[in-house]
């Protein structure tokens, strides 16, 4: 089953067109890196798929027309890890993660044994068990990001959309997060993550979608998307292309010479 299909999606923000008729589909078991320069429309794309922005075109989530779903039905299909790491109140980290179970609980019901197991597993996967009882607002930026990622995992959805999930993480936790997204894909779940680090995108994603000025300019396996020509025209950089341990390395070196 297709987890997400987007047809002719266009978005205007304040009369300024941001996305121009995008088409793509996400099947199960994919780890898709959404890449593109600043202002290309990556965040807008993620937010319009989640119905957080008014958009034209059709979005289908888990086989159903998104326009016909309510917020709760959408939440059962797709989880969202926002770019802003907002935690308004000084609540324990564990409570933040447990909020991920919200869409699965009716009314005022308490957490079930199964909910607790899922919350614990999510915390273990994001390596945040050690600060389970600490106040979330007092954690460092990277720790907070991991707690919020655990929250999104605890929602336990077939599809996860993450907006720059690696920003602010140390290299070990960046790689751990990429591995985790890869393992979700191995479980037939899918992840769409916007990324600025082309090295991580090249090495860990199964597929890349390159956005520029609100249009998809390349969509496919990393080797087909991250080409010297694309980096030069879209990102205006020259890059080093190599290989290590059987996976590609892409490292931007310098600004491309103006044409």
């Amino acid at each position, binding site marked *: 089953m297709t987890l997400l299909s987007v047809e002719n999606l266009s978005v205007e923000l304040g009369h300024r067109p941001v996305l121009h008729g995008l088409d793509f589909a996400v099947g199960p078991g994919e780890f898709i890196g959404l890449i593109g320069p600043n202002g290309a429309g990556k965040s807008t794309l993620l*937010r319009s798929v989640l119905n*957080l922005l008014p958009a034209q075109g059709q979005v289908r989530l888990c086989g159903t027309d998104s326009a016909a779903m309510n917020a709760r039905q*959408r939440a059962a299909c797709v989880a969202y890890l926002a770019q802003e790491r907002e935690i*308004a109140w000084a609540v324990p980290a564990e409570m933040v993660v447990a909020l991920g179970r919200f*869409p699965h609980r009716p009314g005022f019901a308490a957490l079930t044994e199964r909910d607790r197991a899922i919350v614990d597993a999510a915390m273990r996967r994001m390596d945040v068990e050690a600060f389970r009882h600490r106040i979330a607002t007092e954690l460092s930026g990277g720790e907070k990001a991991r707690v919020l990622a655990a929250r999104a995992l605890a929602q336990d959805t077939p599809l996860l959309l993450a907006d720059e999930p690696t920003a602010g993480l140390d290299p070990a936790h960046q790689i751990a997060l990429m591995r985790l997204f890869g393992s979700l894909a191995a479980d037939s779940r899918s992840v769409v993550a916007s990324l600025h680090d082309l090295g991580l995108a090249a090495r860990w994603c199964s597929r890349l979608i390159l956005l520029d000025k609100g249009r998809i300019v390349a969509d496919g396996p990393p080797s087909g998307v991250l080409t010297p020509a694309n980096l030069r025209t879209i990102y205006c950089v020259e890059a080093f292309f190599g290989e290590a341990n059987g996976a590609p390395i892409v490292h931007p070196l310098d600004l491309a010479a103006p044409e």
Partner: protein
Amino acid sequence: MSADRHYPLLIALLAILTLALFLLSLTTGPAGIAFADSIKALLSDKADGVALIMREIRLPRAMLGLMIGATLGLSGAVLQGYLRNPLAEPGLLGISASASLGAVLAIYTGLSASFLLALPLAALAGAVAAVLVVQAIAGARGGALLVILAGIAISSFAGAMTSLALNLSPNPFAAVEIMFWMLGSLTDRSMVHVWLAAPFMLIGWAMLGSLGRALDALTLGSETAASMGIELRKVQFLAVFGTAASVGAATAVAGAIGFVGLVVPHILRPLVGARPSRLLPASALGGACMVMAADILVRIIAPERDLKLGVLTAIVGAPFFLWLVFRTRRSLL
């Protein structure tokens, strides 16, 4: 988690304190009736002087203190959670100011003298007008920032119109009456006021009380909350209209009582582990305690001077709030 274990205890303590203050409020007054006599008179079906005082003066006063305090505490906690801003309070939506304006216009035009409920009904009409404007401006898609901005604009406008009414007041007595009403008080209220306010407050409480889990989710911001299945429009509707119904009714029968809705959620937030859903019942009970305690104090401090309740809550509340700010500043440094 310690907050988990302490929470039922905290609610129980607040409930006991609320009950104790309610009884104390029933037995405090210029008539000097002994505690046992007053409670006995209240429960008896005799129609002597003591029973009359208890039923017609003290009972409505205590009940209104409880209801208004709970309203202010609950809506303060909901609005702080909804707007994710610890400075939010019921007055922010412009509802108190507009309800005051309605009451002031009733006094100014002499309508308030025509029948007993003219003044509270005019105040309720003011609250309804304010909430409709806020909702219209904030729009269907909504947004916390728009709600705040619309509320500030309406508060300022209602304040200006109230000043105009004072400015053009036909005689000094009307001006003094307006001033005194605006200070906020529970003196000389009757059961009629209780019956007028109660339905609006109950509806408002039901709307506000249903928001606990949505407010928990909103801790992570409105977009993350929406992605977790929260219908933001519904939350905005319930928060705005629930506040309008309950705070509008409170202002209509007692005038504007400040600082309770701001300070009470602040005091209790650390005690409930900062969780918005848990803050709601705690803050409702805490608000009831604070208003009843203040209303007992105004009767004890200056029984013959008719010290206004709203004046006392501000005199005690403002320095206390300053202390809270000071404490926060210290933890930030």
